[in-house]
């Protein structure tokens, strides 16, 4: 089982280089991350975009072995990236400077896109000082207010990520404010339904528990005080969060208040998609590329 980002990076370096298709790499920070990942032996970059803008950056940053495909039109860039994955010329996708809606439109195209799972979702992997293993959390980036069926798909997408972390039977905790089941807090209903779906084999090889409150997830003392014995306490691999607002706040709270080391990847398409934000540090960018390449 992979327990931290150094191990993720090590696995990414050790395996074959993943062919990373980058949608419009004409940005300094993007090329910087790609240069590092390439130098470490993680990836083999395929840069789709305006060659006249990309080539000088590649030169400047010293990125070696990059293939550049010269396309200027944003829509065509998106389509070409998706086509490369479909044709087996690339293993994973990364958003560079291309706008997210343009890239997503190409990915989600019913005929020529990369639709595979029931939905696309964002999965964050966190390394936390107070948690003994990597915590994989979803969805703080894409699915706003998932219903039960969507939550089942979120779990399936997150499970694919943790398989890359060499976890055989992932433990999934469905987070809520309380452990009581009440229709006044619908996430508690979803949680028990997901537990049953897992029991009936509808979610694959996973162990699901919930509803579980954050204190019980993070502290044996809190669990004991509440009289709850849960194998999720300090041992859940995946934490399913009720909605985007809570998940986003949790992850960002961990980053800024608890110095969490975090990487993110979009799952549910035919390949992992690295979708970074401008505010992401170089470390986050590199960790995310490493994460995508071990999935």
């Amino acid at each position, binding site marked *: 089982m992979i327990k931290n980002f150094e191990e993720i990076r090590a696995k990414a370096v050790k395996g074959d280089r993943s062919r990373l298709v980058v949608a419009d790499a004409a940005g300094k920070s993007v090329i910087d991350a790609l240069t590092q990942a390439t130098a470490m032996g993680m990836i083999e970059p395929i840069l789709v975009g305006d060659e006249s803008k990309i080539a000088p950056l590649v030169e400047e940053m010293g990125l070696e072995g990059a293939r550049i495909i010269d396309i200027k039109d944003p829509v065509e860039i998106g389509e070409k990236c998706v086509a490369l994955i479909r044709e087996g010329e690339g293993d994973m996708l990364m958003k560079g400077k291309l706008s997210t809606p343009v890239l997503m439109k190409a990915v989600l195209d019913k005929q020529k896109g990369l639709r595979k799972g029931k939905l696309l979702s964002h999965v964050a992997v966190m390394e936390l000082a107070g948690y003994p293993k990597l915590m994989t959390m979803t969805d703080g980036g894409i699915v706003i207010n998932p*219903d*039960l*069926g969507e939550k*089942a798909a979120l779990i399936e997408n997150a499970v694919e990520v943790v398989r890359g972390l060499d976890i055989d039977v992932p433990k999934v905790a469905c987070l809520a404010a309380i*452990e*009581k*089941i009440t*229709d006044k807090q619908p996430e508690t*209903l979803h*949680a*028990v*339904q997901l*537990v*049953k*779906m897992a*029991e*009936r*084999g*509808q979610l694959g090889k996973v162990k699901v528990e919930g509803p579980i409150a954050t204190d019980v997830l993070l502290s044996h003392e809190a669990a004991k005080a509440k009289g709850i014995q849960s194998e999720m306490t300090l041992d859940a691999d995946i934490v399913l969060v009720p909605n985007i607002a809570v998940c986003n706040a949790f992850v960002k709270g961990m980053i800024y208040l608890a110095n969490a080391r975090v990487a993110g990847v979009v799952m549910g398409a035919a390949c992992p998609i690295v979708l970074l934000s401008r505010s992401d540090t170089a470390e986050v960018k590199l960790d995310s590329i490493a994460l995508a390449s071990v999935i």
Partner: protein
Amino acid sequence: MELRMKTLNDIIERAKSLPGRNIALAGAHEVDSLLAVERARVEGIAGSVLVGHSDEIEAAAETAGISLDNYEIVHEPDSKQISATAVKIIKAGRADALMKGLVSTADFMRALLRTEGGLLTAKLLSHIALFEVPAYSKLLGVTDAAINIAPTLDEKATIISNSVSVFQRLGIETPKVACVCAVEKVNPSKMPCTEEAAILAGMNRAGQINGSIVDGPLALDNAVCPEAAKLKKISGEVAGDADIILCPNIESANILYKSLAYLGKCECGAIVVGTSAPVILTSRADSDATKFASIALGIAVS
């Protein structure tokens, strides 16, 4: 070791073992009802307090060929008040089970719910039938085929508790409840019954529904047939060994009830619970055996 109630006769024997029980029969001026309580008296299950207009009761008794010497008659000349008077008899502790004779269902229900605060002790009334099914290893409870039309999640939780109390009264401490749907998998958005079943199972596991083991969704086959449960790889204690079948709504429960009764030729005893005293509500279409078993069930759990 827990008791296993296998046949309606087990219920009848249990009723007989409880001494000095009485039924308050609301609207006793009806031949069928009089014949039913007479059989209960003769077989040593319970005596009856006959409530209604005494002249009419006497006339019906004569037609039925029953002597009224063995009965207390409470004369109630106002037909609209018969049910209320019967409820008052229960409230006063003079009878242990309430039975509906020839009174309007609306008056009966109103009295049941309102007279002197009514008899309701649970959040709602519910109906349960205990079937003797030759192909099954024990009595099988079916709920709710008669009262709750489209129960909500909370109402289903109460129906479970009501049904469980009946089994506990029969000596089965931890009955197994199967929340039955068309399939045993949770089908989000498309089959709401499967979603509710999973929640009920979760509530049971979380200690919010007690005194029972609840599982669901289960399809009827894997609820009552161990081989079917095994084939579908459904673990848990309920699958293949359910005591109580909670149906998703009145239609499915009614169809299950009538399939067993008319196609399977199974007899049952049925009562209404959720009250301080069991309520015996037989229908004219019921067989004599079912009427008798229903009275016995009412007394056995009183």
